[in-house]
């Protein structure tokens, strides 16, 4: 029985069980439909029965953005629709200080001067409704079509630009991205969505959201995506007779499927997700055969998360129990044989968290977390003839305890203190404090002075990957990476919906884990060798006129140095500019959105750097031109700039060409 079969064994009976238990409940029914999304249409008595969201990402308790002890950006479902964002990568590329690159296999997130082509986003913690998405083998935060939840199900995304290890532990190194999914009334009773785009791109989604009774509801959604990709890709590095003059035909397909369920029942909430994504790799990495079909990657990610929340009077208790699955398969076609990677992660965990208030003004949160990693297995073998190169089976554990609070000594001052202790079965202990001061010195102005520390635990890939001494050896003595961050944030709201935010930041990273060549035996090995420092500043201005006309301009300057070599860090652009405009064309019914992204040139440590680029994305969003129907037309890279992203070391390419102009039409019908 394969892992996938086992999954089907768990998820589908669970779904069926839920559907059967929930189906015979119409005793509660009175036949009136809850308006999707618009709460103002509900009578007061019903509004008083709804529950408010009480926890947010920055502090693990609810607070307004201007009080959060970090620089926070929020992207809403309205932004996602207006700008035609297709993936989490599209969304994050539009957030101040961030940039995204793509190597035609995975998408990589960079921010605040740090990005490493091919680093699997391990220095960002990615969560869905508080559930950790980073896997247990590579720590990968999947933000492309491999992200397990359909972007249409996202209600809002909180992006925290500072480390969060003092609350969330590993991976919350440069930032925390928490994706919050829609509730039943926001989805609508029944929703069908279809997309079609250039390069033979199709996506379909079916979602149902059913409120059942007081505090109970269910959302079920399934999506399927496929893209044939570029018919022809040209890589000048391969431009010779043997390699078809650098041209690859086909080999760029991307396909994924996703299932998502969220069921709330009184104080319980059960969420499950399962996704699989397969991508053909056209770039011939690791010296695989250029142009040969069959080099591809497949990622499978699933989880079940059961949450229980209770008001104890003096405090709110939240307990969680989860089970996670991850599987990666990689096929690499070499001349005469295929090399195959297989990694499997299976883990479970539990958390208990208490939040409360002292004297009605000092908020606090305390919690404990345990993760039991049942499988963290890595296999690598050659087919035909069969030869095993790696057969590494691991299991380990990790637990943590944290305490954090907001103390308000004076009227306009918040002192935010927090620390977390983590114990790892692999490398030992780590303790990460943070300190923040939020001072509102004028009525609409707040100044935040923040200091934080964070860590990233070495993952099993870095610790144990080896190929029997051919090219790579294991490195079981790795320590955690460390970062210290210093930041000052100024936020001010002017009258007439004008908002300004500015930050100055300095990050110092130590013991960065890097793949190097050991001089003694010539083998590649991961070591804690690099130090990196980034200093920068960024600012954002946002202005709103009425309900739908909005403009936002953001600029980031950053300078990163590798402190071991005193060189500028690769793949780190010095300037970033982002401009967003939403413009109503015909009342609320037709909306035009423009996104302009500028990314400065990026070094890649080789001969040819990735050139600076300006990319323009346009979306026309049409609401209600037919009953219950929403349509949008998006043009990405409207001027066909075909910019290139820096390639990681396993590529012979120095830079990798992006898609160029693409078009997408999307229709959503909501019942």
């Amino acid at each position, binding site marked *: 029985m394969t892992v996938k079969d086992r999954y089907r064994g768990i998820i589908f009976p669970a779904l069926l069980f839920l559907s059967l238990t929930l189906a015979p409940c119409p005793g509660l029914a009175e036949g009136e439909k809850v308006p999707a999304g618009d709460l*103002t249409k509900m009578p007061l008595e019903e509004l008083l029965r709804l529950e*408010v969201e009480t926890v947010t990402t920055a502090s693990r308790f609810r607070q307004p953005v201007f009080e959060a002890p970090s620089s926070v950006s929020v992207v809403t479902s309205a932004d996602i629709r207006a700008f035609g964002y297709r993936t989490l990568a599209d969304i994050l590329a539009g957030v101040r200080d961030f940039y995204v690159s793509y190597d035609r296999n995975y998408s990589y997130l960079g921010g605040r001067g740090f990005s490493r082509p091919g680093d699997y986003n391990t220095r960002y913690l990615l969560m869905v409704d508080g559930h950790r998405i980073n896997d247990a083998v590579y720590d990968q935060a999947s933000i492309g079509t491999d992200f397990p939840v359909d972007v249409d199900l996202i209600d809002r995304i909180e992006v925290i630009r500072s480390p969060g290890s003092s609350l969330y532990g590993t991976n919350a190194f440069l930032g925390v991205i928490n994706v919050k999914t829609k509730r039943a009334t926001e989805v609508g009773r029944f929703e069908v969505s279809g997309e079609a785009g250039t390069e033979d791109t199709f996506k379909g989604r079916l979602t149902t959201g059913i409120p059942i009774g007081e505090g109970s509801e269910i959302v079920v959604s399934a999506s399927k995506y496929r893209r044939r990709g570029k018919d022809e890709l040209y890589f000048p590095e391969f431009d010779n007779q043997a390699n078809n003059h650098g041209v690859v035909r086909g080999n760029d397909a991307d396909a994924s499927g996703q299932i998502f369920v969220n069921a709330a029942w009184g104080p319980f909430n059960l969420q499950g997700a399962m996704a699989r994504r397969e991508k053909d790799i056209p770039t011939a990495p690791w010296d695989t055969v250029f142009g040969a079909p069959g080099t591809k990657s497949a990622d499978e990610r699933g989880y079940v998360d059961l949450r229980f929340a209770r008001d104890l009077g003096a405090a709110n208790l939240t307990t969680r129990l989860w089970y996670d699955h991850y599987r990666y398969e990689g096929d690499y076609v070499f001349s005469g044989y295929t090399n195959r990677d297989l990694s499997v992660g299976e883990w479970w965990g539990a958390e208990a968290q208490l939040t409360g208030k002292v004297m009605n003004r000092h908020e606090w949160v305390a919690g404990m977390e345990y993760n039991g990693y049942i499988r963290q297995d890595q296999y690598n073998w050659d087919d035909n003839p069969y030869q095993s190169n790696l057969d590494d089976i691991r299991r380990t554990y990790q637990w943590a305890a944290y305490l954090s609070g907001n103390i308000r000594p004076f009227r306009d001052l918040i002192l935010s203190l927090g620390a977390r202790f983590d114990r790892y079965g692999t490398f030992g202990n780590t303790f990460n404090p943070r300190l923040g001061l939020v001072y509102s010195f004028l009525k609409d102005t707040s100044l935040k002075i923040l200091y934080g520390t964070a860590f990233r635990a070495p993952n099993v890939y870095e610790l144990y990957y080896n190929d029997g001494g051919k090219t790579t050896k294991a490195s079981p003595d790795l320590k955690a990476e460390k970062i210290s961050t210093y930041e000052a944030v100024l936020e001010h709201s002017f009258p007439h919906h004008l908002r300004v935010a500015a930050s100055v930041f300095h990050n110092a990273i130590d013991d960065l884990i890097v793949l190097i060549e050991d001089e003694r035996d010539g083998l590649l090995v991961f070591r804690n060798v690099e130090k990196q420092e980034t200093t920068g500043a960024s600012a954002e201005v946002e202005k709103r006129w009425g309900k739908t006309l909005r403009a936002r301009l953001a600029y980031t300057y950053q300078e990163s140095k590798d402190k071991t070599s005193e060189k500028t860090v690769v793949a780190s652009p010095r300037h970033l500019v982002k401009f967003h405009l939403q413009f109503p064309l015909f009342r609320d019914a037709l909306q035009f959105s423009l996104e302009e992204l500028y990314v400065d040139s990026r070094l890649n440590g080789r001969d040819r750097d990735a050139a600076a680029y300006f990319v323009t994305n346009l979306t026309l969003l049409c609401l209600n031109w037919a009953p219950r129907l929403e349509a949008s037309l998006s043009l990405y890279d409207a001027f066909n700039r075909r910019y290139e992203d820096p390639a990681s070391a396993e590529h012979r390419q120095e830079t990798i060409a992006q898609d160029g102009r693409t078009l997408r039409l999307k229709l959503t019908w909501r019942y």
Partner: protein
Amino acid sequence: MGAGKSMVDFRRSLKISLVIAFILASVPAVRGEDRRVPEYRLKAAVIYNILKFVSLPPDKRPGNELVLAVLGRDPFGEDLEVLRGKTVGGRTIKIVRSGNLKDLRDGHVLFIAPSEAWQITDILHSPLVRGKLTMGDTEGFAEKGVMINLVVRERKIRFQINNKAAKREGVNISSQLLRLGEIVAR
């Protein structure tokens, strides 16, 4: 295409889930409540509903607007914008915001943000709040004289009513609303 072939199993799983989705969609329409709504999205909706049950002192100014003024640091953000343009008792809601009470003299409803808690007594004594419906969402505001104060109890929104303060300014709160709220002062 390589990526397509081994998707067969997954596609089968999708099919099963689609069938289940259909079963669920065919469950008779059920009235119920949503869970976990963003706090200020809910508060905005509650305010809109409350306004339907309140009659304000007659307004001598021309126009048919109901001006909702937010004093201090606006905690609603986008969530209040859904009320813009909606009508209550034939009047169209207009939203204005300011950190300064003087800018809000045209407001019919004054929502005092939590950021103003430190000077709530001064605000309530100002002649600029005369004849306005005062609202807030900070613990203790109702006792201080804010007419309607939203509070969160066990994750749900409740509202406190200071009817004494309301009567003093000629604001009439309907008995229906008085039944649903928690009366702080008659």
